[in-house]
């Protein structure tokens, strides 16, 4: 009986010790912390930095403005297809690209997908509930000139405990009317992982 009690007490103490050992520390989001070797926030940040730098420096903006009497191009974000071996959410770096469009004011951005559906639903609601002066009209949305699409690919080469993972992220801008691709951004990341 005494032995059992002693055993239960030691197990409880061990569990409590483990529970109390957890430590959470806030770190800088730009700090490079690699734990598993899989896709992480550093990879997403590297892609975002590369894409924002190249998309705003490319000629497609000036070409568009020259052809359209100085009007800024309007972009909508389409699909990004993740064809890699890991679950990767592209929104983490696509949002950074969108943010650069808005903050630099060189490119106009229009909402798409579910958010656009929500906007239209709100507009529909206003048709019967809002005052006539504040009611927003249908049919006045800004049409996009370009669509931003992308793909994520990966190659894994592994043997026993060694592994090299290669990621290639591409974003491309296509003229919606002519289907002409006006810009392709690319970021390649290779990681050597030893387990």
């Amino acid at each position, binding site marked *: 009986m005494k032995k059992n009690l002693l055993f239960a007490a030691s197990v409880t103490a061990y569990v409590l010790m483990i529970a109390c050992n957890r430590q959470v520390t806030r770190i800088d989001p730009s700090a490079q912390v690699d734990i598993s070797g899989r896709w992480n926030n550093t990879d997403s940040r590297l892609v975002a930095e590369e894409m924002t730098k190249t998309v705003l420096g490319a000629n497609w903006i000036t070409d568009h403005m020259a052809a359209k009497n100085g009007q800024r191009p309007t972009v*909508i*974000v*389409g*699909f*990004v*297809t*993740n*064809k*890699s*071996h*890991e*679950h*990767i*959410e*592209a*929104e983490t770096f*696509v949002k950074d690209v969108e943010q650069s469009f808005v903050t630099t004011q060189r490119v106009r951005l229009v909402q*798409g*997908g*579910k*958010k*656009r*559906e929500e906007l239209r639903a709100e507009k529909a609601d206003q048709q019967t509930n809002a005052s006539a002066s504040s009611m927003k009209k249908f049919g006045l949305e800004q049409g996009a000139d370009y669509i931003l699409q992308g793909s*994520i690919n*990966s190659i*894994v080469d*592994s*043997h*026993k*405990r060694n*592994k090299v993972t290669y990621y290639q992220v591409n974003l491309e801008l296509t003229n919606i009317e002519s289907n002409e691709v006006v810009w392709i951004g690319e970021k390649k990341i290779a990681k050597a992982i030893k*387990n």
Partner: protein
Amino acid sequence: MKKDLLSAFMLLTGFFLTVSGKSQLALAPDQNPNFAISRDKYMKMADSLNAWHSTTLQENYKAIDWLADRAEARADRREFRRQLRLERARWGNDYYYDNDYDYYPSYRGQYYNNNYYNNRYYRGNRSFRPRWGFGLWWH
């Protein structure tokens, strides 16, 4: 009456001719005159396609990875053992280990405890049942 009908018909014909003529005029320079076929096709599917804009389509593949495969095999084995334990807990160990298991234990000693079932021939056959498995061998 006939005159009215004729004038109405002419008016309608004129209206349709004007409308069709305008639609012909609406073609942009070098635009394909058959564009309406494609437009009508994609107008039907635009809503369902565009609802997924700004999202990531996950079309992942399974990479060849020795460590990951080993971990997966280990997880499979653990899951199998867990299921086996659950089955044993549900049906009892006799179901898996006891060669003399009877489906209706309460009948034991009543119907089967006679010379016919206890003779050497019958028990000999029963002893050939495998010791491991999911208990589908009692007949």
